């Protein structure tokens, strides 16, 4: 049971961060460098999952992505993609919950990358995308990795949104925290619960440590 929960959690978290990463870079860029009306609105919206009860997020996802939901119905019709009660749904729920963490980490890095460097790249013949990819992104990379690790660790631990949106199905949506909760509800499950808790602790701690080390490397790279 522990093994299954662990591999499932890792699979869900991996899918979750890979899905949200490009979007997070784009949103971080918009929030740092973009000049447009409604920036504050976007900022608030992105950070909403940090302050909403996770169950509320799960509920919203059900409304939107449920099989009769606005987006969910369309996805099912067009691509036969079902999110409710599936692993992909679990990944979506954790992605939404960990998204602000990822955006935050990338944004902090981006604020330390001199926008003038991109201007310099432009005068040397690099187009806007080229300038971003060859100058800003490499300088941002440690920040992106830090964001990735933090979001990954947070994804492993997401409970409320997952259980609300995709329920608690063994082998499909029963990730570590859900397995831990289930073990606690089961008579004689104490030992399993303890092992699962220790596992969660180790994973989370390793993740945060890795993020901190990456952040340090980032600062060293910029020579500050």
């Amino acid at each position, binding site marked *: 049971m522990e093994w299954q929960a662990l591999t499932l959690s890792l699979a869900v978290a991996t899918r979750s961060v890979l899905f949200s990463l490009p979007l997070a870079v784009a949103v971080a860029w918009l929030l740092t460098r973009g000049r447009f009306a409604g920036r504050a609105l976007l900022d608030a919206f992105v950070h909403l999952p940090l302050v909403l009860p996770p169950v509320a997020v799960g509920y919203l996802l059900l409304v939107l992505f449920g099989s009769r939901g606005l987006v969910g119905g369309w996805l099912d019709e067009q691509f036969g993609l079902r999110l409710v009660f599936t692993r992909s749904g679990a990944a979506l729920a954790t992605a939404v919950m960990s998204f602000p963490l990822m955006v935050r980490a990338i944004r902090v890095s981006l604020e330390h990358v001199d926008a*003038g*460097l991109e*201007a*310099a*790249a*432009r*005068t*040397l*013949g690099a*187009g806007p995308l080229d300038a971003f990819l060859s100058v800003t992104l490499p300088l941002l990379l440690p920040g992106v990795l830090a964001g990735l690790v933090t979001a990954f660790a947070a994804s492993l631990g997401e409970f409320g949104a997952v259980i609300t949106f995709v329920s608690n199905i063994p082998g499909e949506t029963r990730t570590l925290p859900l397995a831990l909760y289930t073990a606690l509800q089961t008579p004689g499950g104490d030992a399993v619960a303890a092992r699962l808790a220790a596992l969660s602790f180790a994973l989370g701690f390793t993740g945060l440590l890795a993020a901190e080390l990456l952040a340090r490397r980032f600062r060293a790279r910029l020579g500050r």
Partner: protein
Amino acid sequence: MLRVELRKRRGSFTIEAAFEAPLPAVVALFGPSGCGKTTLVEILAGLLAPDAGRIELDGEVLCDTARGISVPAESRRVGYVFQDARLFPHLDVRDNLTFGLKRHRHVPVRIPFDEVVDLLGLEALLTRRPGTLSGGERQRVALGRALLSQPRLLLLDEPLASLDAARREEILPYLERLRDRWQVPMVHVSHQFEEVLRLATHVVALDAGRVLTSGPLVRAALDPALGRLVGAAAVGAVLETTVAGIDATTGLCRLPLGDNELRLLANGLAPGTRVRLQMLARDVIVATRPPEGLSVRNVLRGHIAAISAESADSDLVSIDIGGALILARITRAATQALALAAGQPVWALVKAVSLRGRAC
């Protein structure tokens, strides 16, 4: 030809500039801090759009708001050396240098890598990271990087401003050398008139977003508008001439000036060298009769072209020395006592030691 005509509102003041210069020229954008020089070069580079205007380089229109043309920065082939160098911190010096070169594979290489490394003395720095370089080294790399992008115009935004006097002296010769070696047209932003005298062929003097005067340095130096900008102590004619010979007995070198000859300390100048020198207005004495028994080595015969009031009690006398104009600052009292007037024949006296020629 570089033709610029533009308008840009920046906060509380508006930059309105128009000037042109034949290429390959070194155009000095000269003016006090905050007069709009950096904004102007950012517009030339395409990093900033003018509210209205037109920029033409070598017959190609880079920007014309009336016709909706704006060539993006990356396609202009206008190099930019920033005040703060802006080297890419994640790349070593070699990769910084080749950044622009790699993106201009389709244009013929007029300025080759090895020559730039050699001329700017970058060989020892190639594997270093920008973070480990000194300020002067950084500017040299930035200069090389911009040059290697094979620019048709090089913008230098006070590349020496962040350096101390000694470092500045270290970089200036490099600028002179690359100007002479590849004849890259340059627009050099500066608030140091000393740098303008060393590098520029043309001057655009700016103040509060307006062009006070523009034209060849030799002519602009005579303009009172530039004089107000550089300050009374630095006002003087800029003369360009060629060393005719060195006097074997005195060691002074002889420079033809109009129908006269100028003498000054040789200071390593060889016959045939093209020389630029500034003759400060405060160093020139005006006489109405040929003087005798004076130590002064230069007695130039000419006539007064014009007299203009410079301040409440001093005048600037411009004297035509057989076609070359020089300036002399004298007190109003002297003007009146000698009854000086335009057209009058005079002798201009300049000490040889107050002149310093520089090869150009």
